[in-house]
C-alpha cells in the first residue's frame, strides 16, 4: 500500500502538515465546532430556564435540553477537538506522517455516528433524558448507550493512531532527542484516555445490555463507582490537553521555553499515576464505602494530581515571564504581564483560561473533593459551578484560543472579524467565570443542580430559599448570557473564517513529498547544565511576578478551604 508522504510547510510558523493529517484535523475540528453550536443552543434554553425569573422551558424539555447540553459539550465538543489536538501534537509537531490515516477516518466516522445516534435518542426519541451520567437504574433507550459506545470506540482508534504516529516519528527519525513537551502532554492525555475508555466500556456495555433486557440488574453503587472512574478520568484528559495547549500557546505567542523540562514532564506523569482513583470524590456521601477508602483515594491519589496542576499553574506563566523578561520587559514584578499582547485572543484566551481554571475551578474542586466538606455541596449548583470553571473557562477557552492560531495556520484562511475576536475571550471567559462563581454561590446556599423549579410552586411542602440564593441565580443567568454572546462570536468567527474567510495564498505553494524523515541530522548540543537565564528577575528568582501570583493563589486557597471547614462545623452534628 502506498503511503502518502505529502507535506506542506506553513510559511509563517514553519510547521509541517502531513496532507491526510491536515484533513483529519480539519474535520475533527469542524465536528467539534458543530457540537459546540448544538450544545450552545441548548445552553441558552437551560440557562433561561434556571434563571427562574424567565423560566423558559417546560420540565420535560428542560431535562431533555440539559441531558443533550451535557453530552454535546462535555463529550462531543471536547473529544472531537482533542482528537484534532492529538493529531496536531503527534503529526505536525513531530513533522511526522500520521500513522494509518484510513483507521483515523474510520475512527472519525464512528465518532460521528455515535454522536448522531446518541443525539437521536435524546433529542428525537425524547425518551432518554437521563443526563450524561445516566445513573442506573434510571434507564435510557439502547441507542443512547450504543451511541456513546460507538463514539468511545472511535475515540480509542484516534488514540491508537496518535500512538502509532509517535512510533512512526521515532522509527523514521523525524525529530531529534525527546518528543516536545506539548506532545508529551498530549501523550499523557492519550494514555489517560485509553484507561478511561476501558472503564467506560466496563460500565456502558453492561448498561447497554441491560437496556436491551439481556442483563437483569445493575447495582446503583457499582454503576456510580465505575461510571466515575470513566467520568472523572476523562476530565483529566481535558486537563492534560488544555495544559499542553497552554504550553503550546506560551511557546507560540512568546517563544517561551518551559522553565525546566524535567519539572513539567514529571507533573504530567503525576497526572497519569494519580488520577485514576479520583472517582472516589464523586462518592463521598454514598453509602457502602468506608472513610478509609474515601480518604485514601481522594488524598493520596488526588492531591498528587493537584500538586501537578499547581506546578503547571506556576510553570506556564513562569515560562512566559522568563521569555518576556529576556525580551527586556524586566522592570518590577509585573511589567512582563502588563506588556503582554492582551489584544491577541490567542494569548488573552489562554491566560484567562489559566487563571479561571486555577482560581475558580481548582480551588472549588479541591474543596468539594474533601471527604467531609462534600456534605455541604454535594449535588448543589456548586457542582456545575465548579465544572463550568474547569471544563469551560479552562478547557473550552483554551481550545478557543488555539483555534485562533489554527485558522490561518491549519485552514489557511484569514480570520474574519478581528475586532470581535479581540473581545471574544473576555466576554466568554469573564462571563463564564461570573456564571461559575454565582452558581457556586447559589450552591453554597443549598440550591440543587438539575432542578426545574427551585420555587416549588404548587408543592405540598414548598421550600423557600433565601433571597441571596435567588439573587445568585439571577446573576448567574445574566453572566451566562454574556458567555453565550461570547460563544456566538466564537462560532461566527470560526465558521465565517473557515468557510468564507479570505484564502491565504502562498506563492509557489505545494505539498512536498518527504521520503524519509525530515529532521536535520542531530547536532551535538553543548550541555547547559548550569544556571541558564541571564540577568533577569529579582532576588534569585527568574519569575518573581509569577511567584507572587502563585502566593496570592495559595492564600486564597487556604482561606477559602478553612472558611468551608468553619461552615461545616456549624451544621447538624452527624456521625
Amino acid at each position, binding site marked *: 500500500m502506498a503511503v502518502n508522504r505529502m507535506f506542506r510547510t506553513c510559511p509563517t510558523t514553519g510547521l509541517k502538515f502531513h496532507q491526510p493529517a491536515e484533513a483529519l484535523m480539519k474535520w475533527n475540528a469542524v465536528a467539534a465546532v458543530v457540537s459546540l453550536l448544538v450544545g450552545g443552543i441548548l445552553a441558552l434554553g437551560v440557562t433561561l430556564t434556571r434563571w427562574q425569573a424567565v423560566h423558559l422551558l417546560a420540565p420535560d424539555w428542560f431535562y431533555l435540553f440539559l441531558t443533550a447540553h451535557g453530552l454535546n459539550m462535555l463529550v462531543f465538543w471536547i473529544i472531537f477537538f482533542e482528537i484534532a489536538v492529538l493529531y496536531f501534537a503527534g503529526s505536525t509537531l513531530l513533522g511526522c506522517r500520521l500513522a494509518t490515516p484510513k483507521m483515523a477516518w474510520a475512527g472519525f466516522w464512528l465518532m460521528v455516528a455515535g454522536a448522531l445516534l446518541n443525539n437521536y435518542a435524546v433529542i428525537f426519541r425524547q425518551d432518554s433524558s437521563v443526563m450524561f451520567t445516566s445513573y442506573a437504574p434510571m434507564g435510557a433507550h439502547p441507542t443512547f448507550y450504543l451511541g456513546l459506545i460507538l463514539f468511545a470506540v472511535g475515540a480509542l482508534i484516534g488514540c491508537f493512531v496518535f500512538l502509532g504516529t509517535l512510533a512512526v516519528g521515532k522509527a523514521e527519525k523525524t525529530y531529534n532527542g525527546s518528543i*516536545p513537551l506539548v506532545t508529551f502532554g498530549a501523550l499523557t492525555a492519550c494514555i489517560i484516555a485509553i484507561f478511561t475508555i476501558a472503564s467506560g466500556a466496563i460500565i456502558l456495555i453492561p448498561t447497554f445490555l441491560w437496556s436491551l433486557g439481556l442483563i437483569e440488574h445493575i447495582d446503583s453503587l457499582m454503576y456510580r463507582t465505575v461510571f466515575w472512574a470513566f467520568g472523572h478520568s476523562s476530565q483529566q484528559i481535558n486537563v492534560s490537553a488544555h495544559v499542553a495547549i497552554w504550553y503550546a500557546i506560551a511557546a507560540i505567542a512568546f517563544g517561551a521555553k518551559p522553565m*525546566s523540562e524535567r519539572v513539567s514532564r514529571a507533573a504530567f506523569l503525576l497526572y497519569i499515576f494519580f488520577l485514576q482513583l479520583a472517582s472516589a470524590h464523586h462518592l463521598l456521601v454514598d453509602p457502602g464505602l468506608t472513610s478509609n477508602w474515601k480518604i485514601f483515594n481522594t488524598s493520596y491519589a488526588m492531591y498528587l494530581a493537584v500538586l501537578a496542576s499547581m506546578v503547571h499553574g506556576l510553570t506556564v506563566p513562569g515560562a512566559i515571564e522568563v521569555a518576556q523578561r529576556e525580551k527586556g520587559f524586566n522592570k518590577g514584578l509585573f511589567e512582563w504581564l502588563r506588556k503582554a499582547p492582551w489584544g491577541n485572543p490567542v494569548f488573552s484566551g489562554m491566560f484567562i483560561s489559566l487563571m479561571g481554571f486555577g482560581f475558580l475551578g481548582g480551588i472549588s474542586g479541591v474543596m468539594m473533593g474533601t471527604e467531609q466538606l462534600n456534605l455541604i455541596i454535594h449535588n448543589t449548583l456548586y457542582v456545575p459551578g465548579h465544572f463550568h470553571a474547569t471544563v469551560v473557562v479552562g478547557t473550552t477557552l483554551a481550545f478557543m484560543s488555539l483555534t485562533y492560531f489554527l485558522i490561518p495556520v491549519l485552514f489557511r484562511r484569514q480570520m474574519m472579524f478581528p475586532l470581535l475576536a479581540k473581545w471574544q475571550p473576555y466576554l466568554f471567559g469573564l462571563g463564564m467565570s461570573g456564571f461559575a462563581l454565582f452558581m457556586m454561590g447559589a450552591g453554597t446556599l443549598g440550591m440543587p443542580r438539575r432542578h426545574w423549579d427551585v420555587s416549588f410552586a404548587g408543592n405540598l411542602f414548598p421550600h423557600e430559599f433565601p433571597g441571596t440564593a435567588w439573587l445568585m441565580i439571577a446573576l448567574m443567568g445574566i453572566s451566562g448570557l454574556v458567555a453565550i454572546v461570547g460563544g456566538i462570536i466564537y462560532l461566527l468567527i470560526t465558521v465565517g473564517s473557515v468557510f468564507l474567510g479570505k484564502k491565504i495564498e502562498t506563492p509557489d505553494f505545494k505539498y512536498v513529498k518527504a521520503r524519509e524523515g525530515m529532521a536535520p541530522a542531530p547536532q551535538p548540543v553543548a550541555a547547559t547544565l548550569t544556571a541558564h537565564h541571564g540577568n533577569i528577575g529579582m532576588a534569585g528568582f527568574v519569575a518573581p511576578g509569577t511567584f507572587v501570583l502563585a502566593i496570592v493563589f495559595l492564600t486564597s486557597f487556604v482561606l477559602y478551604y478553612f472558611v468551608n471547614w468553619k461552615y461545616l462545623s456549624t451544621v447538624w452534628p452527624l456521625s
Partner: protein
Amino acid sequence: MSAILPPPDRVWWKQPIDRVEGTWIAIALVWCLIMFFMMPYWHVFGKQNLANEAFKTTPEAYTRKAQEVVDKYTVRTETAQNIPVVHPPAGSDVYLVARLWSWWPILELEAGKSYRIHLMSMDWLHGFSLQPENINIEVHPGYDHVLTVTPTAPGTYSVICNEYCGINHHTMASKIYVK
C-alpha cells in the same frame, strides 16, 4: 518555540530545577499534606462525619421496618394524603423512604437529641438534601444508609431531592420538624 520542539538539551532531565519552581513545589507539597491530614483530623475532632454504616437490603424489608416505626410513633397526619408525622424517641432508629417522587414519613425530632436516621430509595437514585442546613447525601436503592444526626436548633426544615430522578424530580420535597 521550545515547548513545541524537542528539548534542545538532549539530557534535559539533568537540568537543575529552577529556584522558583523548587520553592513552589515544596510549598505546594506541604499544603497538599495539610489538606490530607485535615480529613482524619476531622474524623477525630470534628462533629460532622459519616459513619459509613450501611446494609444491603430489599425494598420490602426496608418498608416493613419503616411501617413499624410509623405504626408506633405517628403523632398526627398532614395534607390531604394523610402523610404520617412520626415523633420517635431519642436514640431510636427512624426510617425515611425515598421513592418517585416523595419522602415518607415526615419526621418530628427534638433539638439536642440524637437519632439514627436510615435512608434508602425504593427505585432510582435520590438525593437527601436538608435545607437550610445544606446537608446532602446520596440515597441508593438497595442500600440502607444509617446516619446518626443531632438537630441543633428548633424549626421547620425542608428535605428536597437533589439527585435528578426523572420528570417530577423538582416536586420531591418534604419537611423535618425540630421541636
